[in-house]
């Protein structure tokens, strides 16, 4: 019951789904890149939790913002304290649905559209992103890349450093899902 409650937090309703129809990983990689010619700003987290329900074509991601690692400690400090306000908003989440047709038995890579709600810094926005999914019985591979603007999530960048941070931040996701065992 406790597990079910936690999964509901990630945006899933499992009432009618069987365990073999859900795939899961706690080690998904998320990279964000807001580099400009003046500064390389790349951060990586290998600890995103994500689920796919292949019956409902639903997908959910959740990551702790303090798990992102930067090249410089100062960037990490600014990211958590000034921009993401990680103590107030410790998680970033995405819950969405694959809106393109997908054959989960094909085992061939397919490009799909995923529509959902991305929540970070306490602000939710609807986004549509392209993802490549390679279905499989024992594992599912998924990757996606999309852009967000800090302003859309009420993240204000001081004018002194505005030129060092890209106006659009690129977010890349890579996940290898295994069947979820309850």
């Amino acid at each position, binding site marked *: 019951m*406790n*597990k079910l409650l*936690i*999964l509901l937090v*990630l945006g899933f309703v499992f009432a009618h789904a069987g365990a073999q129809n859900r795939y899961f990983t*706690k*080690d998904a*990689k998320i990279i964000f890149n807001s580099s400009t010619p003046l500064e390389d700003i790349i951060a*990586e987290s*290998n*600890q995103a*939790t994500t689920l796919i329900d292949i019956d409902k074509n639903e997908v959910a991601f*959740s*990551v*702790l913002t*303090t*798990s992102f690692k930067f090249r*410089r*400690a*100062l960037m*990490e*400090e600014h990211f*958590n304290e000034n921009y993401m306000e*990680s*103590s107030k908003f*410790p*998680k970033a989440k995405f819950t969405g649905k694959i809106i393109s047709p997908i054959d989960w038995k094909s085992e061939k890579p397919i490009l799909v559209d995923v529509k959902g709600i991305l929540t970070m810094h306490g602000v939710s926005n609807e986004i549509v992103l392209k993802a490549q999914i390679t279905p499989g019985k024992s594992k599912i591979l998924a990757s996606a890349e999309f852009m967000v603007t800090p302003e859309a999530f009420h993240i204000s960048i001081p004018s002194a450093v505005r030129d060092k941070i890209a106006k659009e931040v690129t977010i890349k996701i890579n996940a290898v899902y295994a069947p979820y065992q309850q």
Partner: protein
Amino acid sequence: MQFTHLINNNTLNMSQRKTVQWLLWIFLIGLITAFSAIYYAFNMPRRNLAKENSAYLLSAKQLISDFRNDETIATRKYLDQAITVSGEIESIRNLDNHSMVFSLEDAMEGVSCTVDSADVVTYSSKLVHFKVGSQGTFKGRCSGMLMDIQVINCVPFQ
């Protein structure tokens, strides 16, 4: 250049020259201090959990219980704090970036202690003794809860 010009200028008397020289030194020291401060801030070292005192020393079961009881309060209490946590190792995972994750008390909903790739090398002689079913103690930085409670930048203890 202008300061040098003023010092060498014969129109200044001895006392004025000394004042200008002092001002020049103060300016230079200020400049070096400011530059050093900016350089340090820009290249400030990462937190070294091995050298930090733990704010909390507790069992994995206690940490799990605190987060399950009230995630908001527990997050406020433990987030970004150095904690030392002990429990039974339920699973060990090797990540693509060569870091290792040790799950305490429950593989899915327990406490996940991540040892960074550099520390996997540094503490390899200790980590070989950490096996599924054995007791493990880690000091790290609590980054909050998803399904599991995540403790990152961990240093292992026997």
